[in-house]
């Protein structure tokens, strides 16, 4: 009995460590059983905890979709829950005016690549200092499984009942080519490297992007013979290839594989910093006074 009480006490202490980042009154989540969104949330809370970040220094920005629920309502901190596809423009505004905040966007493939795709590539090109965690479940999950620009060729969805005739984006490659500072791809099976990569993204300056391949057993999985979260995770475990190994493989060998790891990491001038610098220069010239004599905000 005494031992039991000890266990409970230690568990309570431990539990608190993560619950301080969560709105625990809304747990368990509204996600379907086995959904990858919960795993991404879990890894994110662990990453913030590992870095000992103060949640008050983070602003999370999100859009519409199941994945967009990861920061809102579950993560306890300042959150902007914006319209579908628009978290990146809102996040840009936050970063310009609040440069000391860590600005994090967590949203789905339909949101960030479908309706919001243009914002994504231009934010990468401009190298805006925001952290974008894309939850790529290859579908519009929340609305019942419509075709997304990430859905693989041939898959039947509610809007492609006879099979998808379109090619999907290779989104991590696209964002890397567009100019991001840091890009990596993981799956919800690879929780430890995913958590490390989140820590990297949260602390590196510039546009940092993680593509997280994630399961939607309800709106996608059941169409491809993966009715449970475990079946999808099993595929991620078996079909993932490290980017270093992929470099040695032919396109045929890579067919159906998920390439995981870091695609790019580079130092580059960053948009909001440059914008501020220019502002200071012009204002100093115009007013004839040094920046110490006036404040930007």
């Amino acid at each position: 009995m005494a031992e039991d009480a000890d266990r409970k006490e230690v568990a309570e202490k431990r539990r608190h460590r993560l619950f301080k980042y969560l709105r625990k009154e809304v747990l368990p989540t509204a996600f379907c059983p086995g959904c990858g969104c919960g795993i991404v949330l879990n890894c994110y809370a662990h990453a913030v905890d590992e870095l000992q970040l103060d949640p008050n220094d983070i602003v999370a920005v999100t859009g519409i979709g199941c994945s967009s629920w990861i920061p809102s309502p579950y993560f306890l901190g300042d959150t902007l829950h914006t319209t579908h596809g628009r978290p990146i423009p809102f996040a840009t505004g936050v970063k310009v005016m609040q440069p000391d905040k860590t600005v994090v966007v967590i949203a789905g493939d339909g949101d960030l690549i479908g309706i919001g795709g243009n914002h994504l590539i231009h934010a990468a090109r401009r190298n805006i200092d925001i952290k974008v965690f894309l939850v790529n479940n290859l579908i519009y999950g929340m609305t019942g499984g419509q075709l997304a620009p990430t859905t693989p060729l041939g898959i039947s969805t509610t809007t492609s009942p006879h099979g998808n005739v379109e090619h999907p984006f290779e989104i991590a490659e696209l964002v890397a080519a567009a100019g991001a500072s840091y890009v990596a791809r993981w799956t919800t099976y690879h929780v430890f490297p995913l958590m490390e990569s989140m820590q990297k993204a949260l602390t590196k300056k510039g546009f940092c992007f993680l593509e997280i391949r994630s399961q939607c057993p309800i709106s996608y999985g059941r169409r491809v013979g993966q009715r449970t979260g475990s079946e999808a995770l099993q595929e991620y475990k078996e079909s993932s290839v490290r980017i270093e190994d992929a470099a040695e493989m032919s396109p045929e060998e890579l067919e159906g594989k998920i390439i995981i790891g870091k695609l790019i990491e580079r130092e580059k001038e960053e948009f909001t910093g440059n914008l501020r610098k220019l502002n200071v220069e012009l204002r100093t010239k115009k007013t004839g006074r040094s920046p110490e004599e006036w404040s930007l905000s």
Partner: protein
Amino acid sequence: MIEIDEELCKGCGICVDFCPLKVFETSDKINSRGYYPPLPVKEKDCVGCRLCELLCPEFSIIIINE
């Protein structure tokens, strides 16, 4: 030490399927939401790797290593 908050569990079975040491079995008792939580039947075999803690989509499992 494995702590499970059965009331948070949604019975997805991920912890049961992916623990490398096969520590869990699915309980035959349902929680108040109607889900079957895991039972750590081979807790002695647990190596404290925390894979189950991170893979659980519902913050239902905590591994205490200290």
